[in-house]
C-alpha cells in the first residue's frame, strides 16, 4: 500500500539529512506504529507520504515513494487528499469551519463530491467519531478530545485508503486519548484502512500490527510488538521507552508477553512471586520520612466565575506546605489550570482567599508576586522572545530591578541548574522543544521563587527529555523549592510526586499521598484517569508500589510463609 524505496530528505539549509535511505513497505490494512526520539525523522517521514514534503516544505528529496502502486512524485497533498489522509497533533489549526457538519463537508466539497453523497459521508463520519449530537455546534466550543475526533471525521470524509496520524493524542487528556483510540478501533472494524500512527509512547501503540523505530533518519528497528517485547534495552538505546510490562517481566526473569495488567499479575503469581511480608508498611514508612515543613500556600473556599458566568472553581480549599512536591490531576476543564493561575495573581478570586506565608494575595501586584511564585506555562513558545538564551533568562530578574551583577549571577545559576550553561549565547529558537522547555524553567528559576508551578511540564517531550526534565524538577525540590505540577502523565505523578490533588468540575474531589490515591483505582477511573501499568500490577498483587523498582523490591520468590495483609483483602 505504502512503499518507500531509498528515501532520503534534507531540509533546506540543514547540514544533516533528516531521512537517509529509508526503505519500508506497509501492507494494505496494516496498522504500523512509528516510534523514535524527537528529531529521529518520524514526522519528516510522514510528511513525505502525501507530498507535504517536498511541495510545502522545501528541501532535497530522493528515492521513490508509491501509494497503492502509484509513484507520487510530482503530486501535491491536494492531489493525494482522497488517497492519504492526515491527522495532525495540533487540532486547533486543522479546524476552520463555523460548525461541525460543515467542517466534515469541507474536504468532499473540495473534491467535487455530489451534495447527496457529502450528506451521507457527513452522517457516517460523525457517527463514527461519536459527534452526531454536536453537528450544529461551533468547533471552537468543543473540548480538545472532541476537536481531535472532529479532525479525524473530517479526514475520513475524504475516504482515503491510508491514514497517517502524527502524534494525534499528545495534546489530549487521558479521556480524550481513550476516546480517539476507540474511534480508530471502530474505524478498523468498519473498513480496511492502512494506518500509520506516530506516537512517542510504545505502550500507546502496543496494539499495532507492526512497530518501526527510526533513529537519525534511518529505520533502526522493525518488528511486531511481540518481537519487540523483550527489546527494552535496544529501544532504550534508541531513546524510546520500551513496553512497561516487558521491563517488569525482565526484572523478574520472566519471558512471556503479557497482554494487560491482569494477565501480568496472574503470570507473576503463577511464577511463584509473592509480596514480601511487611512490604507495604516499609513503603509507607519511607513516605513518612520525607514529610515536609509548615504551610506555604493556603487556599480557602476559592471560587472563580468567568465573565460569561461559567463557574470554573466552586469552593476550593487546600494547602501546600513548604518543600512539598504536589501534583494536580484531572481532566481538561476540571479547573486545574484556573486554580494555579490564582496562585501567582494572574486571576483574582471571585470569592474566597489565598494566603502565601500567611499573607493574603488580594491586592498584591503580579510583579511583586512573581518573586515568590513562579509559573512555567505549558508551551515555552508562548513566552520565549529574546534572541539569546541569556537575555531570555535575565528578563525576570531585570524586571525586578536587580543590579546587572546580580542578574548575571542568577542567570548563570539558573542555566547551570537546567544544564544549559554552555548554551547561554545561542538563539533559543534553534533548540529542541525539550531544551526550550528548560529555558522556560530557567527563566522562572532566575527569579528565585519559593513556589514553582509547572503546567504540563512533560507534554511533547520524548522519553529522554521527559526523564531529564523530571530529574531537573526533582533536584529543584531537593534544593528546597516547593513544587506544584499540573499533569496528565500518570507515570510522572506516580514516580516523582508525593501528594496528589484530584480535581473534577471545579472542585477538589480527593487529595492525599500519591500511594494512597493511586491504590484506589476505581476512584481514579471515575475521574477518567488510569494509574500507570506498574501501579495497576502492584494493586492486583496487593502492594501499593508506585515504581518498577518499588514493585520488584517488594516481591519475593516462594509460595510459603504468611501472606501479606493486602493480598488477603484483594482476593
Amino acid at each position, binding site marked *: 500500500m505504502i512503499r518507500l524505496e531509498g528515501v532520503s530528505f534534507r531540509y533546506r539549509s540543514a547540514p544533516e539529512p533528516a531521512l537517509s535511505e529509508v526503505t519500508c513497505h506497509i501492507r494494505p490494512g496494516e496498522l504500523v506504529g512509528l516510534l523514535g526520539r524527537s528529531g529521529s525523522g518520524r514526522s519528516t517521514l510522514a510528511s513525505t507520504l*502525501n507530498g*507535504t514534503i517536498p511541495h*510545502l516544505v522545501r528541501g532535497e528529496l530522493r528515492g521513490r515513494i508509491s501509494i497503492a502502486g502509484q509513484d507520487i512524485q510530482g503530486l*501535491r*497533498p*491536494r*492531489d493525494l*487528499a482522497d488517497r492519504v489522509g*492526515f491527522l*495532525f497533533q*495540533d487540532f*486547533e*489549526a*486543522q*479546524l*476552520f*469551519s*463555523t*460548525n461541525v457538519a*460543515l467542517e466534515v463537508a*469541507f*474536504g*468532499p*466539497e*473540495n*473534491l*467535487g463530491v*455530489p*451534495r447527496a453523497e*457529502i*450528506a451521507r459521508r*457527513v452522517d457516517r463520519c460523525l457517527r463514527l467519531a461519536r459527534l452526531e449530537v454536536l453537528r*450544529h455546534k*461551533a*468547533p*471552537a466550543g468543543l473540548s480538545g478530545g472532541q476537536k481531535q475526533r472532529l479532525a479525524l471525521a*473530517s*479526514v475520513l470524509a*475524504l475516504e482515503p485508503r491510508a491514514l497517517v496520524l502524527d502524534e494525534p493524542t499528545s495534546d489530549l487528556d487521558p479521556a480524550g486519548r481513550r476516546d480517539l483510540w476507540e474511534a480508530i478501533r471502530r474505524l478498523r472494524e468498519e473498513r480496511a484502512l492502512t494506518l500509520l500512527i506516530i506516537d512517542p509512547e510504545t505502550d500507546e501503540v502496543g496494539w499495532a500490527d507492526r512497530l518501526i523505530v527510526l533513529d537519525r533518519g534511518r529505520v533502526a528497528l522493525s518488528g511486531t510488538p511481540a518481537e519487540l517485547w523483550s527489546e527494552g534495552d535496544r529501544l532504550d538505546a534508541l531513546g524510546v521507552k520500551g513496553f512497561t510490562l516487558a521491563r517488569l517481566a525482565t526484572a523478574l526473569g520472566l519471558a512471556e508477553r503479557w497482554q494487560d495488567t491482569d494477565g501480568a499479575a496472574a503470570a507473576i503469581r503463577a511464577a511463584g512471586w509473592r509480596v514480601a511480608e511487611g512490604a507495604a508498611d516499609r513503603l509507607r514508612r519511607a513516605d513518612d520520612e520525607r514529610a515536609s515543613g509548615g504551610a506555604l500556600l493556603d487556599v480557602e473556599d476559592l471560587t472563580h466565575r468567568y*465573565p*460569561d458566568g461559567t463557574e470554573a472553581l466552586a469552593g476550593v480549599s487546600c494547602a501546600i506546605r513548604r518543600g512539598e512536591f504536589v501534583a494536580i490531576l484531572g481532566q481538561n476543564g476540571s479547573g486545574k489550570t484556573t486554580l494555579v493561575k490564582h496562585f501567582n495573581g*494572574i486571576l483574582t478570586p471571585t470569592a474566597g482567599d489565598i494566603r502565601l506565608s500567611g499573607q493574603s494575595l488580594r491586592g498584591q501586584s*503580579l*510583579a511583586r508576586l*512573581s*518573586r515568590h511564585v*513562579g*509559573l512555567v*506555562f505549558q*508551551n515555552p*513558545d*508562548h*513566552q520565549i*522572545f529574546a534572541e539569546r538564551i541569556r537575555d531570555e533568562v535575565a*528578563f*525576570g530578574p531585570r*524586571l525586578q530591578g536587580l543590579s546587572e551583577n546580580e542578574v548575571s549571577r542568577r542567570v548563570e545559576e539558573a542555566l547551570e541548574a537546567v544544564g544549559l550553561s554552555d548554551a547561554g549565547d545561542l538563539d533559543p529558537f534553534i533548540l529542541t522543544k525539550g531544551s526550550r522547555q528548560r529555558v522556560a524553567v530557567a*527563566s*522562572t528559576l532566575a*527569579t528565585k521563587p519559593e513556589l514553582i508551578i509547572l503546567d504540563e511540564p512533560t507534554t511533547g517531550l520524548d522519553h529522554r527529555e521527559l526523564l531529564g526534565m523530571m530529574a531537573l524538577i526533582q533536584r529543584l525540590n531537593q534544593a528546597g523549592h516547593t513544587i506544584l505540577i499540573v499533569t496528565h502523565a500518570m507515570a510522572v505523578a506516580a514516580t516523582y510526586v508525593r501528594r496528589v490533588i484530584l480535581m473534577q468540575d471545579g472542585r477538589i474531589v480527593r487529595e492525599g499521598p500519591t500511594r494512597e490515591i493511586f491504590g484506589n483505582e476505581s476512584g481514579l477511573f471515575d475521574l477518567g484517569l488510569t494509574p500507570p501499568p506498574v501501579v495497576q500490577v502492584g494493586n492486583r498483587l496487593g502492594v501499593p508500589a508506585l515504581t518498577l523498582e518499588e514493585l520488584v523490591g517488594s516481591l519475593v520468590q516462594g509460595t510459603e510463609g504468611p501472606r501479606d495483609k493486602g493480598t488477603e483483602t484483594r482476593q
Partner: protein
Amino acid sequence: MNLFLYLDRESPVHRLDPRTKIFLLLGSFVAAVLFFQPGPLLALLAVLLLYGAVGRALGNLRRVWFLLLSIALISTVSWSVFARGSTPLVWRVTWEGLRYGIGAAIKIDSMIVSGLIFLSTTRTEEIVLGLIRLRVPYQAAFAFSLAIRMVPTIIGTALAIRMVPTIIGTVVTVAEAQRSRGLDLESGGPVQRLRSHVPLLVPIFLHTLRNTDQLAKALESRGFGAGRERTSYLEIGFHVADAFALILAGLILAMFIAIRFTG
C-alpha cells in the same frame, strides 16, 4: 484562531441569502460615502441599528465599543482642528470643521457597524458560497474568508492592553505568561507601555506564523485547491424575504440619493 464574530441565532436577517446581505452591505457603504453632514448619516446609522436589532447582532457591538469610540473621538477632534471653516467657535475650531468631523466619525462607525452586522449574521461558509455564486473565484473567496477570520485576532491584539475578556486565546496566554514573569503592562508612559509590549509581540507573531504554516498543510491535505469543480454541502437560494429586503433597501438608498442630489 478560532473565534468568529458570527452569532449562531435564529433571525430574519440570518435567513437571508448571503448575496442579499452582500448587496445590503454594499448599499450601506454607498449611502455612507454620499454624505458629509451629520444629519443624514445619523439617519443611516439609525437604519443600520434597526437592521442589526432585527438580526439580533447588536450584542457584538459591545465587543468593539472601544474601537468605535476611539475612531469617533479621533475623527471629531482631528477634523475640528484641521478642517477650515468660516464660523469660529474656540481657538482654531470652526463650526463647519466640527460638523465635518462629527459627520466623518458617524460615517466610519456606520460602515464598521454595517460590516459587523454582516459578519454577525452570515456564516463564513455562506459568505464564501455567496461570493462564488457572484462569480468570484473560489480561491479568492476563501482568502477573503481567512481575512475575516483574522479580524478578531487583529482587534484582540489591538485591545490586549485593555484585557477584554473575549479576545483570542494566544494573545491572552502570551500576556499571562509574560505577566507571570513580572512584566507590567499597565504602568508607565506611552513609550514605556509600547516597549513593554515587545515581549508579547514576538511570541504572538511567531505563533501566528507557525499556525499559518500548519493551516496551509491542513488545508491542502483536505483537498483545498484540488482543481476539481467544487460542490457545496450548504444550500443557499433567494426567497420572498430576500426580494422584500432588497426592495426595501433599494427604496431607502434611492431616498438617500434623492436627498443628496436635491436637498
